[in-house]
């Protein structure tokens, strides 16, 4: 198994290299704007543009810029390890900006994932067991509603209701957990729930359909014939097998969310990775865009690896080779 993990980690490195190379070409070779001109001011002299180009490292051949970028990632730059350069916009190290924001995004993504798992999976299980019942139909109708509702609308509605009208939410913004646990929690609950409702609906529908399919399998019938109690048949044999695709999904979803839940972050003024990435694209802050790309690529590929490892525990048929 360890050999498998090492091999997969090497794949992770390769994937990150390919993705960053693509990003580099897209943003540095084919940009719609010249960052040096953009950041040289309203009425720049050619010398000023050249100076900004030099300071941004854009005066070197593109391949050299990319090699330097890779070298800095692995060996660090003047701002430490990993070397992600400095932001064209804030003129500060990208690493600091990234690490400042990543905790916000992790808070949001992990918290929301816990919430949607706690809501989505039980609802899916109950719906599958009580298939065709009022509970099943009601749950699926709700799930359809939340799947269809845009997250920005849900966010704004939640803010309007719980903050403006009822006054039970502290509103938008982020309080670091190190500053105040209760402040952090109270500011995160609404974004967690809003983001989770969308995913919970997906997960409920998926769990339901998987479980319905699983419960029709021969080995379930065998388990029943053996005289196992129904709850054991459902939980031990049915749910466990039906959750395998859910694990795949959560790996991908969590990985993607670590790259930023842009809309949720924007609506709730959580200064996380996603919002930063979008702003950076619009502002032409190429080092920041690259840094986020690296993080997203790493997050998705590593989460995939974790999912594959977890498979072994959920499905005994899976073997690593």
């Amino acid at each position, binding site marked *: 198994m360890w050999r498998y993990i090492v091999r997969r980690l090497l794949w992770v490195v390769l994937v990150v290299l390919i993705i960053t190379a693509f990003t580099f070409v897209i943003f540095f070779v084919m940009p*719609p704007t010249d960052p040096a001109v953009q950041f040289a001011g309203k009425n720049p*002299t050619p010398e000023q543009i050249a100076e900004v180009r030099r300071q941004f490292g854009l005066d070197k051949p593109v391949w050299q810029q990319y090699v330097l970028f890779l070298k800095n990632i692995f060996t660090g730059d003047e701002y430490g390890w990993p070397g992600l350069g400095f932001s064209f916009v804030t003129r500060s190290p990208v690493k600091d900006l990234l690490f400042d924001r990543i905790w916000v995004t992790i808070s949001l993504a992990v918290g929301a994932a816990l919430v949607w798992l706690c809501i989505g999976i039980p609802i899916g299980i109950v719906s599958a067991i009580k298939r065709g019942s009022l509970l099943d139909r009601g749950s699926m109708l709700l799930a359809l509603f939340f799947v269809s509702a845009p997250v920005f609308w849900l966010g704004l509605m939640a803010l309007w209701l719980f903050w403006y009208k009822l006054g039970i939410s502290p509103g938008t913004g982020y309080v670091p957990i190190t500053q105040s646990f209760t402040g952090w929690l109270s500011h995160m609950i609404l974004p967690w729930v809003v983001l989770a409702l969308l995913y919970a609906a997906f997960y409920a529908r998926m769990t339901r359909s998987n479980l319905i399919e699983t419960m029709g399998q021969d080995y379930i019938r065998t388990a029943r014939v053996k005289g196992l109690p129904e709850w054991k048949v459902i939980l031990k044999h049915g749910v466990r097998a039906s959750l395998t695709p859910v694990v795949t999904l959560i790996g991908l979803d969590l990985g993607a969310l670590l790259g930023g839940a842009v809309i949720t972050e924007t609506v709730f003024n959580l200064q996380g990775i996603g919002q930063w990435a979008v702003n950076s694209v619009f502002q032409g802050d190429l080092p920041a865009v690259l840094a986020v790309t690296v993080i997203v690529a790493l997050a998705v590929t590593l989460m995939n690896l974790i999912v594959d490892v977890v498979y072994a525990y959920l499905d005994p048929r899976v073997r690593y080779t």
Partner: protein
Amino acid sequence: MMGKRRQRLRLVGLALALALVAAACGGGDDEGGGDQQEVTAEKGGVLRTATTDFGFTNGFDPTGEYLGSAFTLYGALIRTLVSYKHIAGPPGNELFPDLATAIPEPADGGLTYTFKLKPNVKFAPPLDRAVTSKDIAYAFQRINTQPLAAQYGVYYFGVIEGMDGKAKSASEAVSGIETPDDQTITFRLTKPTGDFLYRLAMPATGAIPEEVAKCHTKAGDYGRYVVSSGPYMLQGSDQLDVSSCDAQKPISGFDPSKNMYMVRNPNYDQATDETRTNYVDGIKIDVNTNLDDIFNKVDTGALDTSFTDDAPPTLLQRYSTDQAKRNLIHVNDGDRTWYITMNWATPPFDDINVRKAVNQVMDKAGMLQAWGGNIAGEVATHIMPPNVLNGQLTAEYNPYPSEGNRGDEAKAKEFMKQSKYDTNKDGVCDGGDCSGLVMINRNVAPWTAMEPVVVESLAKIGIKVTARELASSAAYTTIQTVKNMIPIALNAGWGKDYPDPYSFAAPLFTKEALIPTGNTNYALLGLDSAKAEELGIDAPAGAQIPNVDADVNRCQEIAEAEPRTTCFVDLDKKLMEQAVPWVPYLWNKVVVITNPSVTKYEFDQFSTEMSITEMAVSNKETLS
């Protein structure tokens, strides 16, 4: 200076909403400063604001920063030799001594300026020392340092002896600046420069302590270490460890992506300052990416106002139609001209009659409506905003008049008939040169809303354009790259850097301003075959492209205010009638909404943003 509002106008097709606002406001501008609330203004409290993004152009380092909202912040942090009163309208464009004891008369035929400094002005903690002439000289040395990329250094390069922007280090003295003692500084100029005093009011020239700034040798680096000489300081500035460069850590009160907090500078002496009132005890600007949230907070009183963002049109409409809230809308002149550029080097705009026809046919009223109606601004009829020309030239001068500014097709066709592109003399542009022209535009409102108005107007005289919509920065860099040879563009606007017409004339119309990339002389005035070769383009055969360099230089040498302005007024008229570089269509207004907690609203005409030193609030909050 760059205006954030330029990039942020979110009028999003709700012209109707803004038209209602305009009707409700009925021209009740704040100009002149203050309103009936002024009587209740008291000192104390915290001005609580938020912005979706600071958008600084150079990390808030005063040497290179070029953003209007940064200029308003510097008004509270940095003192210059001369400054403004940070109020609205023409009085806000008058210069007063700030660090200087008096405004001197130039000597040696306008080539020498000597200032005496006030003795009791001190830097904030941890420096706690008096501001000296060497701190001013050091600011100029920074401007002159190439790696610091001073974004408006052109106002000093070639003007002050020894300044060319090519110094390798800020420790290199400028030969044209002398500091015989701590209270005296002398500037020697290479040529008479009538607006030199205005240039000394720019934030980059404010006092900068070398012991701190010498540690920050890259463009933008000093932005998080700004040591105050003004009434406020960045919160936590007193904790800055100046024992060594390694010991310096960014001041806690400013994080470009999160917030900026200012508290009173304990070393500030109000008796030394006749330009600021400093009502509030603190200034708080948080970054909040949710624009609606910002304005909900303004509405509910959690914030006093937004910092630089424009209100959503729906909110503006609600305020304008609510009798109790109308006086919370503040409207002031933006001193910025918005215009359609036409490239002299591309057909059919190499014919002045075509350019005149375009001016004559344009439905400017329709464009203003698409922009947001009368509250958003007024129809521009010439190049420089009236405030910049001290009111000597206003919208009453209109060389291309039409009924209701809707455009005059018949008159436009008369112009077109005189052009070489109207071969059959029917008043319509003929042939391939008149169709398929690329017109650059921005991809957001109100530019997208104006686009059909412009396309339709041009079509009346046979000019058929294909709009290419780009993000704001991409649109600018596209038209600023001369080789792209963009015939016509709708995205451009220009705001004053300081209240003198030179800050329009020189960068926009002189041959010197013609550069391959970053070019702002969009019409290519002054282009000749040598310059065309330098720029890597073909000079249009037979085109007589006007050159106004001599006019600009003549006006620039005049120091006396009135004749100087008159000279630039004549230049403006000459441009509109003999060069026709643009179709100016709008002088925009700045619209701000405040909460009733703001007991005194003021507008800073220099920065064209709210005036943070002249606003008062009723809250009793503190920044600890």
